[in-house]
């Protein structure tokens, strides 16, 4: 069964890692056949903001962040899998696999 993932990415400077992590999550989620939506919180502010409906329907939330998530109250009561942006850049597959494993707990 296809899983639904929503993710937020955010790094310290908000210039590079936020966007690399977002692309890598999308790349490996798609490879595995999962649905994914990614919100970036970077130097340009919040972009591709997640809809509450998508958050509510998600099997797992990934926070790929090195800093605090803005508007984190949207994810209350959700199962959140947290990783650093560098880990996602280094190994996107491991991040997706880890999130899916966490979703099944």
């Amino acid at each position, binding site marked *: 069964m296809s899983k639904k993932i929503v993710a937020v990415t955010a790094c*310290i*400077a908000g*210039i*590079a*890692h*936020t*966007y*690399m992590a*977002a*692309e*890598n999550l999308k*790349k490996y989620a798609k490879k595995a056949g999962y649905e994914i939506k990614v919100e*970036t919180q*970077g*130097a*340009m502010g919040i972009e591709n903001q997640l809809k509450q409906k998508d958050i509510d329907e998600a099997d797992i939330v990934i926070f790929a962040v*090195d800093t605090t998530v803005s508007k984190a109250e949207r994810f209350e009561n959700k199962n959140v899998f947290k990783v650093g942006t*560098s880990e996602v*850049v*280094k190994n*996107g597959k491991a991040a997706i696999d880890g999130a899916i494993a966490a979703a099944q707990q």
Partner: protein
Amino acid sequence: MSETQDFINEKNIIIGLDATDKEDAIFKMSQVLEKNGDICDAKKFYQDVLYRESLTTTGIGNNIAIPHGKSDTVMQPSLIFAKSKRPLQWNSLDGQPVEIIFLMAVGTADSGKEHLRMLAHLSGNLMNDDFVKQIKDANKTQDILDVFDEFKEDEDNE
């Protein structure tokens, strides 16, 4: 697209950068940014980039590094690209030395959103195997520009 040409052109591409180590590479690239009028103080900018390096490595693997920093010496968000003559030690995520460097400069004030978007888009491209392979294979300034042009932003908001 003139905005892209303004952002990345032959003036901010260095093929065969002659640097002894990571710090030397960042400093020499900073000097070019200053010469191009993108930043006003290469030494200060260099210090700001090294501060960012001290937090976590910007060696993202695949022999690529993306040093960057927010600095009030930056007049407009900009990018300088270099291929190093020799592999440089960078404490990369995959432990490999670096040969390809994208140095990104962003000001502390919230300005130049167009250019920020291009830096974000470029960062995303670094996760694209085709983009990385073509950048690695390109060894002339024009070839590098062609790769940037091929992968410029167009259908990102599908």
